[in-house]
């Protein structure tokens, strides 16, 4: 009976968590290109970091959105297994230093060992017009949480917001107006 109760508590405890999702909303009149996505450990250390290996850049036409969410429902890992998402990446690279990295398909058996635990979103790299931006948590001195620019005669703003629905259930939203 005791075991059963533990089983029930743990089971429903796990179910109360949900996946993490990255959402890119392009509400501007410009085309936006997603060049890649980067994550880091929950301890905010620079390394190891994990970057998407871009098979082809992901285009977001004006007025459209793209998402990447985990089909695994993992409590600790970021949703790397993104092949079912609109932001589909088939390869990821794990950097342990600026010059040392390994790569693997995100749906391979090495998924867990490659990516480890406690990963979280850091930034997406996007191109608006001819300018590249890293937009995200502002960690590692490499990304911005809000910025603005001009492409031709069209001005735009880029913002980053986190919608923390519950612990472990977060939407990371990048919006281009």
């Amino acid at each position, binding site marked *: 009976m005791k*075991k059963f109760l*533990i*089983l029930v508590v*743990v*089971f429903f405890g*796990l*179910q109360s968590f949900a996946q993490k*999702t990255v*959402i890119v*909303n392009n*509400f501007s*009149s410009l085309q936006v290109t997603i060049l890649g996505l980067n994550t880091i450990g929950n301890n*905010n250390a620079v390394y190891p970091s994990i970057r998407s290996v871009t098979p082809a850049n992901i285009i977001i*036409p*004006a*007025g*459209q*959105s*793209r*998402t990447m969410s985990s*089909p*695994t*429902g993992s409590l600790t890992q970021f949703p790397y297994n993104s092949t*079912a998402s*609109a932001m589909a990446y088939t390869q990821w690279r794990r950097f342990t230093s600026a010059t040392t990295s390994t790569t693997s398909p995100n749906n391979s058996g090495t998924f867990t060992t490659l990516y480890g635990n406690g990963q979280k979103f850091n930034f997406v790299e996007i191109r608006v017009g001819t300018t590249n931006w890293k937009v995200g*948590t*502002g*960690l590692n001195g490499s990304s911005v*949480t*809000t910025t603005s620019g001009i492409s031709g005669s069209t001005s735009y*703003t880029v*913002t*980053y*917001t*986190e*919608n*923390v*629905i*519950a612990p472990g*259930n977060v*939407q990371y*939203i990048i*919006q281009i*107006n």
Partner: protein
Amino acid sequence: MKNIIKVFLTSFFIASLISCSNNEESTVVNKSKVDLAKKNVAIQNFRKALIKMSDNRNVLISKTGFDNPVMEKESQDIIYLSAKELLLANGMNENEIFTKCNNNPKAVIGLAYTILAQNNQSTNISNQ
């Protein structure tokens, strides 16, 4: 101790299986209840609210310790009503929204974001 670990691993395995089996479930949609014209209006209204929230960003979004800009209540207030309108237009009723979102405004907004992303429509939107 061994037994507890065994039980934990078993439950984790079962939970993972169920999580995977729910992959196809995105949002609660009763297609027979969806009025497409109404839904399109709701999508546009939600987008406009998101743009308005973004325009008011500097005063409405707080930052946590590591510069994470977290959506706060003022921001929620701007987009909550249009988010709920979108859920209703997508076929959910008040009770379903209450049950699925556990009376959490951020969950309502989260679901609206998901619906928005599933309904990619290129439309020019002014900031007005």
